[in-house]
């Protein structure tokens, strides 16, 4: 038990997710977002007009004030976003939302991300536009896949991590997606040969090493823990949240510290998160792991203390990563690879569903879930959720 102000003092009371094939959403982007927010409020039994705060990340284009007419918002008192163009800020958004609630600046805060190709264009292009400069262009580097590929190459070639490890992570993702009716991989038997024979994107990445974008929107309603206990769904508590970067990591044009280069950038964030909560990797019952690319997912697991460069092969094994008996169930709805990719917003939603016992792949007795944000981003973040204040 810890006395940190974030520990168990706010909770997710409702979630909403609308997901479609990329370019195929039946509604405009903002309408998708409104529906996801309405769903989250309906779950909680809270009048959407009472939502008074909004937090997003990743350069979302839906400025909260524009949602007010549809939601009937009476008073917008807090709108904020975590800096950064990638998914690094996703977990940090919960910390920002919690800070607003705990400091009395808002009482019911929606954490959201919405993305439809028609309105926002390709997400990868948008993420890259955030970073693009002439140094990158001159090198022919224009996409997140290439930037992450260069880091992955160093992980494999220099640090000696077996490149085949990523296959277990991909297989576990598809295994979970197969039984999740909301997943892009629902009902599909995934053959690892699909990955091995898919076309090269940027070595060492083939197509199936990469997350593929969806249209959609996700929303989570955060309120004080006290208020959550009066709402319709069992509270899923935020136990801790950390974001940012340490010296030697950041937007450094590949000049990150040598010992940080082939990481996801989480070492300091993970350290702070565990210190804050008094928890350790052994206390984490499942992980919702942002994998923009599978190798970055491996780096993220290493950064969060679940394994090391040296023993990664012992931990990142299919049997160990699945909900049915694994010690480290990862991406139990399928994750960005096999559930769908709306800039990662499906991951905290699965964290909540898993801790309520609503997952398509329930982890027996799960009490805690780590949410790891987008690895490799200059600003990264992680959070821990739980279904009881431990």
């Amino acid at each position, binding site marked *: 038990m810890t006395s940190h102000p974030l520990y168990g003092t706010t909770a997710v009371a409702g979630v909403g997710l609308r997901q479609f094939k990329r370019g195929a959403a039946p509604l405009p982007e903002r309408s998708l977002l409104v529906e996801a927010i309405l769903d989250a409020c309906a779950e909680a039994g809270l009048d959407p007009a009472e939502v008074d705060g909004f937090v997003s990340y990743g350069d979302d284009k839906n400025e909260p004030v524009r949602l007010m007419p549809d939601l009937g918002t009476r008073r917008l008192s807090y709108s904020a976003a975590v800096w950064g163009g990638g998914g690094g800020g996703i977990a940090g958004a919960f910390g920002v939302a919690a800070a607003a609630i705990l400091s009395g600046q808002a009482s019911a805060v929606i954490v959201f991300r919405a993305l439809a190709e028609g309105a926002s264009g390709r997400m990868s*292009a948008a993420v890259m536009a955030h970073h693009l400069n*002439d*140094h*990158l*262009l*001159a*090198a*022919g*580097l*224009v*996409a997140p*896949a*290439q930037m992450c*590929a*260069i*880091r992955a*190459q*160093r992980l494999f*070639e*220099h640090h000696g991590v077996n490149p085949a490890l990523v296959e277990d992570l991909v297989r576990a993702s598809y295994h979970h997606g197969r039984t999740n009716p909301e997943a892009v991989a629902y009902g599909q038997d995934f053959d690892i040969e699909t990955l091995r024979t898919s*076309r*090269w*994107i*940027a*070595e*060492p990445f083939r197509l199936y090493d990469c997350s593929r974008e969806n249209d959609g929107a996700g929303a989570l309603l955060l309120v004080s823990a006290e208020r959550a206990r009066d709402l319709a769904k069992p509270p899923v508590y935020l136990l801790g949240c950390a974001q940012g970067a340490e010296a030697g990591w950041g*937007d*450094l*044009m*590949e*000049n990150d510290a040598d010992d940080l*280069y082939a990481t996801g950038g989480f070492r300091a964030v993970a350290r702070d998160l565990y210190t804050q909560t008094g928890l350790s990797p052994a206390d984490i019952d499942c992980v919702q792991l942002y994998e923009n690319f599978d190798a970055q997912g491996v780096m993220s697991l290493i950064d969060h203390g679940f394994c090391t460069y040296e023993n990664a092969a012992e931990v990142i094994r299919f049997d160990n990563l699945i909900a049915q008996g694994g010690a480290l169930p990862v991406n139990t709805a399928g994750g960005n690879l096999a559930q769908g990719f709306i800039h990662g917003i499906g991951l905290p939603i699965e964290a909540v569903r898993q801790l309520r016992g609503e997952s398509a792949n329930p982890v027996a007795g799960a009490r805690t879930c780590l949410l790891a944000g987008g690895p490799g981003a200059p600003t990264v973040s992680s959070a821990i959720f739980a279904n009881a204040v431990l």
Partner: protein
Amino acid sequence: MNHRLDGADAPYWQGLEQGRLLLPRCAHCARWAWPAGHRCAACGHIGVVWEERPLKATLYSWTRTWHRFGMTESLDVPYVSIVAEVADCGVRLMGRMDDPAPADPRIGEALTGRIDATLVGDDRIPAIIWSRTA
């Protein structure tokens, strides 16, 4: 071209236009500082000097791009992009590399660079193209 003269790294781009690799170091403690900035956090001094470095480096990491991403139309796929650690200063630069195919580039191998350009739309961006040191 002119937007490249707006940032703290303008001398880098001007150097490449003139056929030279110029990199910044603290005017006080001589620490190499890249990306180019304004203040040396190690000693607190404001201001850099630009020094020429030879086009020698070691390969830090690499990727070979096969997918035709937008804005890469002037490059034949596949092409190799690398991070090169410039000799004797530790500064890492992003660049392109002559593809050693069918062999792969190797992390740690010695590289020699030449200055060329990458065409993006109508813009000819100065670029360093590295090759295996013979």
